[in-house]
């Protein structure tokens, strides 16, 4: 299902986020552009530390205290989340967007039972307001059933410390879908889980999103997972979106050197040898490279790449790339 950009429910424009540290400002996000259509499943792919979580936390305005947003807009149904009054923002949080955190163990409060936490999520959500205790509990039990955990009653009375990692992950998912939301942000759900459970979690997630007709932003390290799960993919590098295209198109016709590198570094089950991959690592955010942030690692980089920052440009059919080479500028 492909949606026109004008029908987007979420539209992030030129988002910059910096972190204040003792060594100065870490200029992490450097102009992120990303939009999600109604009912669309979008993937956000990039290596560790490229700023995926930072972007999504900014959307819900739950950044750590030392973060600053010097520039950018996040439109949700045409209104800038970053400028919203508390009441409006609360609407976004209670009926618009919910998020599954990367670390399920950290996202659950260790000193309250799952039940207590879940009931509060329902009670203070838009669709849960004014419901009776019994109704709230019914909803919670249903949600736990939806993520395939047996014996919901016992789970509700358990503390997070009493559950396994996989169960905690599912509970986090259950909490995010227990009341209606338009958009679900899943931040690498299950990175700490083993492969089989991870796979289950992914399928579960996709099933739920499709059933409820939600939009999804799926964050992941892995292009493989994104291919399975999404309609469209954003590739992120060091705080920039470097390429976006429909999933099929991206795999058929990857353009950005970083995307190419990512695809090469997927370990192949057939064929020989270790994947070629990308040399080097993500740059120092305290003094990021001038021009294109990828240029120190890029095989194709030239003078212009070191001087000027390439912007996302359409190369046809909604396929956008931020690379002078590909855009044919040099």
């Amino acid at each position, binding site marked *: 299902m492909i949606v026109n950009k004008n029908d987007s429910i979420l539209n992030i424009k030129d988002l910059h986020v910096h*972190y204040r*540290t*003792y060594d100065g400002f870490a200029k992490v996000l450097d102009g992120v552009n990303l939009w999600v259509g109604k009912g669309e499943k979008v993937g956000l792919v990039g290596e*560790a530390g490229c700023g995926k979580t930072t972007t999504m936390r900014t959307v819900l305005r739950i950044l750590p205290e*030392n973060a600053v947003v010097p520039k950018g807009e996040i439109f949700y149904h045409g209104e800038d989340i970053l400028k919203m009054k508390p009441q409006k923002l609360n609407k976004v949080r209670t009926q618009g967007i919910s998020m599954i955190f990367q670390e399920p163990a950290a996202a659950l409060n260790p000193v309250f039972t799952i039940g207590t936490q879940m009931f509060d999520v329902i009670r203070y959500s838009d669709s849960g307001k004014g419901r009776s205790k019994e109704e709230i509990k019914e909803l919670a039990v249903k949600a736990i059933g939806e993520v395939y955990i047996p014996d919901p009653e016992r789970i509700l009375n358990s503390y997070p410390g009493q559950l396994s990692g996989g169960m905690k992950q599912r509970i986090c998912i259950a909490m995010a879908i227990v009341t209606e939301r338009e958009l679900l942000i899943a931040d690498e759900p299950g990175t700490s889980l083993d492969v089989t459970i991870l796979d289950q979690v992914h399928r579960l997630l996709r099933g739920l999103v499709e059933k409820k007709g939600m939009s999804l932003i799926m964050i992941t390290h892995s292009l493989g997972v994104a291919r399975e799960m999404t309609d469209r993919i954003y590739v992120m590098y060091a705080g920039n979106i470097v390429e976006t295209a429909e999933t099929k198109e991206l795999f058929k016709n990857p353009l950005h050197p970083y995307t190419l590198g990512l695809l090469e570094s997927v370990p192949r089950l057939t064929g020989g040898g270790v994947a070629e991959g990308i040399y080097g690592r*993500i740059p*120092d*955010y*305290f003094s990021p490279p001038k021009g294109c942030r990828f240029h120190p690692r890029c095989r194709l980089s030239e003078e212009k790449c070191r001087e000027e920052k390439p912007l996302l440009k359409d190369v046809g059919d909604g396929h956008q790339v931020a690379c002078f080479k590909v855009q044919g500028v040099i």
Partner: protein
Amino acid sequence: MNISVQSKQEVPALSFSVRVKSGVKKNWYKFSRNKLSVVGLIIVLIIVFSAIFAPLIVPYPHHAGKFVDYANAGTAPCAEYWFGTDNFGRDIFSRIIFAFRGALYMAALVLAIAVPIGVFLGLIAGYYQGTFLDTVIMRVTDIFLSVPPLLLALAIAAVLKPNLTNAMIAVTVMWWPWYTRLVYGMATSTRNEYFVKASELIGAGRLHIIFREILPNCLSPIFTKMALDVGWVILIGASLSFVGLGEQPPTPALGQMVSDGTRYMPDLWWMTVFPSLAIAVTILGFNLMGDGIRDMMAKGEYDRE
């Protein structure tokens, strides 16, 4: 035997080319980031300096002993006597500076004795974790920690002859268990770290492991606690001397001066107020400095190393 196993955390996978500030400079930076720490350091330096050179710098060195000058008794603070004089006509300022000597002497000696004992016992109990030795040491420690420290120190000082030495003994007896408990906790966890296991495998001796592998990893909390404890020892010392269980007159002690002053309230208020202030400023100075040392030893919130 010369074994060196890396005892530091490995560099995290995601690291930047950080401009690491050099050792001393970085430590000073961390210490002085909180300006109060610097204030504390200055207070401490002034107190230590004036205590050491007390006879040279105070206006009336002989007032710190058996001296009477009834003609000037109870003089209010003035240019001649900055903090006034007491009921015997002795200069309170001079006596306070001299009282610092006993207070610092006590703190230094108490810590010099209690810390090695406590640390040693903690290391042994931690190394022999789960054995009889561990049980005995830690249970005895628990017993000493089961009464409020000042109370037992008061009792011990009371049954002995009241003087500075016995006050120090009393406080020392109460002080070591805190270090035993502190070190025990760290020793038991360090003991199971890979670098300790590794050197055990290479055949390092017990002493080597205890003092060369485990101890170095406990040092920074120990020093932090010591820095903060100086203030506490001075406080307990002042409490003991307040009830007459410390340095005996005519040698001045801070607590004793406060207590003497209460008998001349409110007319000779300076007899109470200035020694009280001296106690407060001293403890404050050592605590602020101790906090700075803790900041220096700790990894900062956003401190990437």
